[in-house]
């Protein structure tokens, strides 16, 4: 399974080692890790999601990336539940023979995930995080 939605933390080094294990044809491995940034008031947030749809949405994004680029492997891990400042939220890993495909696919996945996967952030003491106009704009690049 290349898509995981979980409350537990993840280990980027272990996920990379896992992707590289038993093969020597990968030329480029790109990772994106999204982290909880320190907030002015309060240091915790809660990530709500839509169980069932979340997995489907991420699998769809994963499949779309594999269809558009020559990826050798691809992995998306997204957490939900309470998360402290500095915590890891999301991991995207892409493997390809060449760097351009690995970079582009990782960016594409993050751009779609941001505004198309059913997650909602609530900051302690601040309420629900507003969607960023920039995230919607980022999608246009891939049309």
């Amino acid at each position, binding site marked *: 399974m290349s898509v995981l939605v979980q409350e537990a933390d993840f280990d980027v080094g272990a996920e990379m080692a896992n992707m590289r294990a038993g093969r020597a044809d990968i030329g480029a491995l790109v990772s994106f890790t999204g982290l909880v940034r320190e907030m002015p008031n309060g240091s915790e947030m809660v990530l709500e999601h839509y169980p069932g749809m979340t997995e489907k949405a991420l699998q769809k994004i994963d499949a779309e990336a594999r269809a558009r680029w020559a990826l050798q492997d691809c992995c998306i891990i997204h957490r939900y539940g309470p998360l402290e400042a500095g915590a890891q939220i999301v991991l995207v890993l892409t493997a390809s023979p060449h760097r351009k495909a690995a970079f582009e696919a990782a960016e594409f996945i993050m751009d779609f995930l*941001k505004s198309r996967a059913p997650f*909602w952030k609530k900051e302690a003491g601040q309420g*629900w995080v507003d969607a960023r106009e920039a995230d919607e704009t980022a999608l246009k690049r891939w049309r």
Partner: protein
Amino acid sequence: MQVLYFAWLRERIGLPKEQVETEAETVADLVLELKSREPRYAAAFEDMSAVRVAVDQELTDLDAPLKGVSEVAFFPPMTGG
């Protein structure tokens, strides 16, 4: 039909999901029906430009037909990642 609410929609309506019996033909019709029921729905669906909808776990829009559908979800624009 199962109707689900997330984030501030869940909070305003006061529950995460409910079973709704409806003759509504589209999502827009369902929203009108819910709004006419109780003020908390009217408050939640006041500004539909701030509401996204999924039908059977696929993102769609207010025009989506409801025939044969088992799950409709309402939520704000997504903020994952």
